[in-house]
């Protein structure tokens, strides 16, 4: 076996051990940097690189040689300008300096609640997407179709290009092929409603003005976010990534009533299928640690703020912890201070296993970090966070059979057809067409919903 293959084997086994409830040989170093950071590192014009993602490869290769990580240092990107431009997005627009800006735009009005509750998918397609995307205009149907077709072609092209770079690096440097964006992605129903539909301010009002409708809307959106997150392949190692936004800003009473039920159900239903989630607990979740404990065993909890000791104590035996180490340190502290500090985090979080190293959040710009601090921290984790009891059982063990959920309401809409529905309308179609047509149906669903996250 080549050195690279051997290294990749080691990396696969440390991740798999964590997910299989075993103490790994060492703590996985899960550092991956956003597109913009790496483009700036490579001295590229940000605008050009995002329009033509292939040109970032050289910079990616160089950063992979510079910074140690067990996953590809290049995260890829979620947001390329091509499809947002084609669809005239209101909420994702490229600024003059090349950054994709994300201003807050209200996609759903309070008077849309009833329709959203009755026919969620229809409401999203007929009302919300046209407000967020001016070139998806139902009043101009032919151009609407043309623009939509162009945008999805652009989307496929750009994601393929950056995906190919990631695959290439995984081969070349033997990374663990399970980066953040490699599994499923979705949002909690309440966050889906808050983000691009009602907005942060809108939802804050709705919580007080019409809590019943908010709750009903979360239930209505459930089948959509559930379906959106399903990973293409289910294994003990694929993760559904779910960033969580609103809870730190809510009262616990409102959280318990409006946020938690549909979110908890989502994770339980995934767990009943053997699917694990990585949830990004943005901001400070200290108030909610007891709730988090109730989530399915081996949920990966990525924390931004909070007391590492308390978190480890309360949750470390059941769940996998990651995050917490402040990425800000890499800018404001010296290399020596950064290294000392990361050892402190490791001493608290690593014992007993179920820990993956990551920062509290991703840097936004290359100038947000000092490269030498980043390198030193990554190498310290690799060399310092080594276990002497590898192979032992780590905390509680996941068992799929522990999770039972009533099957959820299906996605029903005139804009989405299961094969059976399609076949009933088009009896002449051969069954040979089934996999292809069904796959296209799913692709369109995923793309349309991606536009709203």
């Amino acid at each position: 076996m080549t050195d690279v293959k051997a290294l990749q084997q080691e990396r696969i086994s440390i991740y798999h051990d964590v997910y299989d409830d075993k103490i790994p040989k060492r703590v996985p170093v899960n550092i991956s940097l956003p597109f913009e950071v790496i483009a700036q590192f490579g001295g590229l014009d940000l605008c050009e690189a995002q329009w033509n993602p292939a040109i970032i490869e050289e910079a990616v290769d160089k950063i992979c040689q510079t910074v140690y990580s067990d996953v590809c240092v290049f995260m890829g990107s979620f947001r390329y300008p091509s499809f947002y431009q084609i669809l005239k997005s209101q909420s994702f627009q490229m600024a003059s300096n090349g950054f994709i800006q994300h201003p807050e735009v209200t996609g759903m009005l309070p008077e849309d609640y009833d329709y959203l509750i009755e026919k969620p998918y229809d409401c999203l397609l007929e009302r919300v997407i046209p407000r967020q995307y001016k070139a998806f205009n139902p009043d101009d149907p032919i151009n609407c179709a043309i623009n939509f077709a162009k945008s999805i072609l652009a989307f496929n092209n750009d994601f393929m290009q950056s995906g190919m770079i990631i695959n290439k690096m995984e081969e070349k440097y033997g990374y663990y092929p399970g980066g953040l964006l490699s599994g499923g992605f979705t949002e909690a129903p309440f966050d889906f409603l808050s983000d691009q539909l009602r907005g942060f301010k809108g939802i804050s009002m709705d919580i007080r003005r019409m809590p019943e409708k908010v709750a009903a809307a979360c239930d209505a959106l459930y089948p959509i976010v559930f379906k959106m997150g399903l990973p293409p392949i289910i294994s003990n190692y694929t993760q559904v990534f779910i960033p969580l936004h609103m809870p730190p800003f809510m009262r616990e009473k409102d959280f318990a009533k409006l946020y938690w039920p549909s979110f908890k159900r989502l994770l339980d239903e995934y767990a009943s299928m053997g699917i694990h989630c990585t949830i990004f607990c943005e901001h400070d979740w200290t108030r909610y640690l007891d709730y988090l404990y109730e989530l399915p065993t081996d949920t990966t909890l990525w924390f931004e703020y909070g007391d590492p000791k308390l978190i480890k104590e309360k949750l470390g035996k059941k769940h996998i912890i990651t995050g917490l180490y402040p990425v800000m340190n890499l800018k404001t502290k010296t290399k020596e201070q950064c290294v000392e500090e990361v050892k402190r985090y490791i001493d608290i979080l690593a014992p007993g296993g179920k820990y993956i190293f990551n920062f509290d959040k991703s840097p936004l710009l290359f100038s947000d970090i000092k490269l030498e601090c980043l390198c030193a921290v990554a190498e310290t984790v690799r060399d310092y966070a080594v276990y002497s009891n590898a192979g032992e059982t780590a905390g509680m063990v996941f068992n799929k059979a522990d999770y039972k959920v009533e099957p959820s309401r299906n996605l029903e809409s005139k804009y989405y057809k299961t094969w059976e529905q399609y076949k009933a309308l088009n009896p002449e179609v051969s069954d040979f067409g089934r996999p292809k047509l069904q796959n296209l149906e799913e692709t369109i669903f995923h793309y349309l919903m991606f536009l709203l996250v």
Partner: protein
Amino acid sequence: MKNLITVEDLIIKSVEELDEEKVIRLASKALKAGMEPLFLLDLIKEGVKRVGKLYEDQKYFIADLIMAGLIFKEVLELEEMKVQFRRRNSKILGRVIVGTVKGDLHDIGKDIFKGLMEVNGFEAVDLGVDVSKEVFAQGVIKYKPDIVGLSGVLTSTIDSMKEIVDTLVDAGVRNDVKIILGGSHLTKEACDYIGADCYANDASAGVKLCKQMLGKI
């Protein structure tokens, strides 16, 4: 007389409880019955202050502060308030200009800080979001504030904030003002690096610091 006291208390209490409908109903009724707009405004402010207190005590959270801000605005937009009420507050503690710094569009925190400053007796000028160092420098020259508040949540704002402070130094106005930073990611180290006078991770702590800096506590 007894009746009137009850109405005042009720207004304050319904603001505190974020009961929007009740606030508007009571406020309209009180105005029609001849309550002075300025007096009503004081009641609403008192209610919002109590909301701020509940927030400090971790009984209320950001979503509640947003709602309180909204109720405040709605009362100001009542016909009688708009017509009669001209803002001429004699007992202003000081003037602050605030803005979300270059590169950042997050304005929820900034709006909350600004709102709390206002109910605490400051006059606040809002420069908006994605505000450049030039606009801050012009703002300082134009409005002659006592305090400049820089808001931001993105990690990249550390450099934007530093550039703004540096620009104020270059423009020779740095020492005419106090500079306070606000954002959940800020630390003592970041504040020193930027060269501001102080920072806050929280709006009500920020208001206290502002009062302290002007010697009002």
